[in-house]
């Protein structure tokens, strides 16, 4: 349709009328031919009747007498007429004379011959075949004349009709169509109504079209305004999103970032954004120190649809301070885009580090950086609770330095402090990471050994501690001191399952060592 030339209304109308006229003429030709044929046949019959009347007496006599000569005269006379194809005169016994094609078909006419002397006696028949060809020819000629007249008539009517329709309707409609084609939707262009059509259907069409154009203009203007409002709003939202100081992102349940703002990108770095190349972005979980924890949070939010807030430690790059992000994770689901997690992140490293500093200060001895007594007691209690559940053993060593006070007196407090710091370092070196080293107060330390399972062998540890502590400690270039240690050991759960008693037992045994001559260890019994 679109590739075709636009059709012209008038040519289509002319074609339609011509085609239907042709059909009508064809149909009419058949009917007219039939009618004129029958009319011709009727006329011929009537002519034949008259013709027969002129020879009726002679043929009756011929039939009566059986006179072939007279019959011949009559029949030849009849067949000399061009409307007669053939004739036949018969008596009741035989054919008297026949001429031409007197076939006794449906078209031939039979006339009874009555005796000239007795009206009740039939003496023969006169059979006449009309000239069918002639009838057909005249019928066809008559039909041709009628059809020709009809065609001329139709052509005249067609011409008048087409030019009338063209002038009255097609041209105005074409003009209107061209006008409408040039109208820009939303503009204030309107159609002009032709004067002579102001009050008819074309006039109504123009009026209605103009109303439609009016409402289209109105609607488009409204829509444009609305779109401007939406655009403004969108810009503002984008501004909020893009310039927010907190990182905002949508991530899927695999932790892959779908969309994020600039702050988010700055917080996490390009590794997790996946932009630039075609590789799938890395799961955001890997940016946190505790990968599984972040993963668990995602699954929890997905299952509960409740937002979760958490401070999470981020993998710091080499040589950089630990970073902490405060994360607010909530589920967003939308039929258009599907289900995602919304992540709002801001950097709380400063606060978190400060908090950790404070906590560390509360838990640690500022001089040796070991746990202080209060924190140590708490951790030991926790360790005992865990050991109770794990059915594992613990050992509590109470360590008191020997010959420490003279160092303070002889070399000053700074030297004493250096000794304490060195001892703390050596104690840490003697135990495993999970074991606790506590500054109990003054020159007293507690070492708490944990075991995941099975028995604990505290003897080698105690020996190792003694060996290390008794190594000389260099204060400065020309000062070197040597100290010793008295160690009392209490075991959980052999000696007690109460921290207080374990401490007491270890303490008692440590004093026992002190009394016995120092620099040794003793396990409670």
């Amino acid at each position: 349709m679109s590739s075709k030339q636009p059709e012209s209304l008038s040519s289509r109308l002319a074609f339609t009328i011509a085609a239907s006229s042709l059909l009508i003429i064809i149909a009419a030709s058949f009917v007219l031919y039939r009618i004129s044929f029958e009319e011709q046949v009727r006329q011929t019959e009537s002519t034949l009747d008259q013709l027969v009347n002129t020879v009726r007496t002679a043929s009756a006599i011929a039939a009566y007498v059986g006179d072939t000569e007279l019959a011949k005269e009559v029949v030849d006379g009849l067949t000399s007429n061009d409307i007669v194809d053939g004739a036949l005169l018969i008596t009741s016994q035989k054919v008297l004379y026949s001429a031409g094609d007197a076939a006794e078909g449906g078209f031939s006419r039979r006339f009874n011959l009555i005796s000239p002397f007795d009206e009740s006696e039939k003496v023969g028949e006169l059979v006449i075949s009309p000239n069918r060809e002639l009838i057909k020819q005249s019928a066809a000629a008559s039909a041709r004349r009628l059809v020709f007249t009809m065609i001329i008539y139709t052509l005249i009517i067609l011409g008048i009709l087409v030019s009338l329709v063209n002038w009255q309707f097609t041209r105005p409609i074409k003009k209107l169509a061209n006008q409408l084609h040039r109208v820009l939707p939303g503009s204030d262009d309107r159609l002009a109504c032709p004067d002579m059509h102001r009050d008819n259907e074309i006039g109504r069409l123009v009026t209605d079209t103009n109303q439609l154009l009016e409402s289209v203009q109105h609607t488009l203007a409204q829509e444009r305004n609305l779109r401007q409002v939406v655009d403004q709003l969108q810009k503002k939202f984008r501004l909020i999103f893009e310039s927010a100081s907190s990182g905002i992102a949508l991530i899927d349940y695999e932790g892959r970032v779908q969309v994020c703002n600039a702050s988010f990108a700055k917080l996490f770095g390009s590794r997790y954004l996946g932009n630039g190349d075609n590789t799938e972005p890395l799961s955001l979980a890997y940016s946190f120190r505790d990968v599984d924890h972040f993963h668990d949070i995602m699954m929890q939010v997905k299952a509960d649809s409740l937002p979760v807030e958490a401070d999470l430690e981020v993998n710091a790059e080499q040589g950089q301070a630990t970073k902490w992000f405060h994360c607010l994770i909530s589920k967003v689901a939308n039929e258009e885009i599907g289900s995602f997690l919304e992540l709002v992140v801001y950097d709380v490293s400063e606060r978190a580090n400060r908090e950790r500093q404070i906590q560390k200060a509360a838990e640690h001895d500022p001089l040796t950086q070991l746990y202080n007594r209060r924190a140590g007691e708490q951790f030991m209690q926790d360790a005992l609770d865990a050991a109770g559940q794990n059915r594992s053993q613990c050992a509590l060593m109470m360590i008191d330095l020997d010959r420490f006070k003279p160092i303070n007196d002889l070399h000053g407090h700074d030297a004493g402090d250096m000794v304490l710091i060195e001892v703390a370092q050596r104690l840490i070196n003697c135990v495993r990471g999970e074991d606790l080293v506590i500054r109990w107060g003054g020159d007293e330390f507690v070492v708490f050994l944990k075991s995941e399972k099975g028995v604990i062998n505290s003897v080698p540890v105690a020996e190792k501690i003694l060996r290390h502590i008794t190594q000389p400690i260099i204060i400065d270039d020309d000062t070197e001191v040597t100290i010793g240690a008295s160690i009392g050991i209490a075991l959980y759960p052999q000696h007690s399952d109460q921290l207080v008693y374990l401490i007491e037992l270890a303490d008692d045994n440590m004093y026992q060592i002190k009394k016995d001559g120092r620099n040794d260890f003793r396990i409670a019994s």
Partner: protein
Amino acid sequence: MRISHLLIGLLILVMSSSVWSEVFIVVSKDSDISNLSQKEVTDIYMGRTQSFPNGSLAFPLDQAAQSRVRENFYKILVNKTPAQINAYWSRLLFTGRASPPRVISDPALLLSAIEQNRSAIAYVDGSMLSNSVKVVAHVK
């Protein structure tokens, strides 16, 4: 048979003056023909047939063209005037198939012709009936 004919002849004699319109068709008394219908007479006289119903040849005799009896005969037999009869024959004249009856104007000659020819047939009015002829039909 003969008596009845005689009686009829007598009757005709009595009434001849007044009932002239009756015409008798007669043949030789020796003829085998004894009776003819009006149609058979018509066919013989109008040239349709040249024989009697029994197959023997028929030879019709006509009376004088202007005679009363002739006019009567054709009037009664086929309801035609002498002029029409003449026209009829003139149509057939040159075809050769049929010819009009031979005319014998003299009644005496006509009667003797009947007597002498067993094939002859003629029409007469009642006054001319005699023993030498046989009435085979009469028309009225």
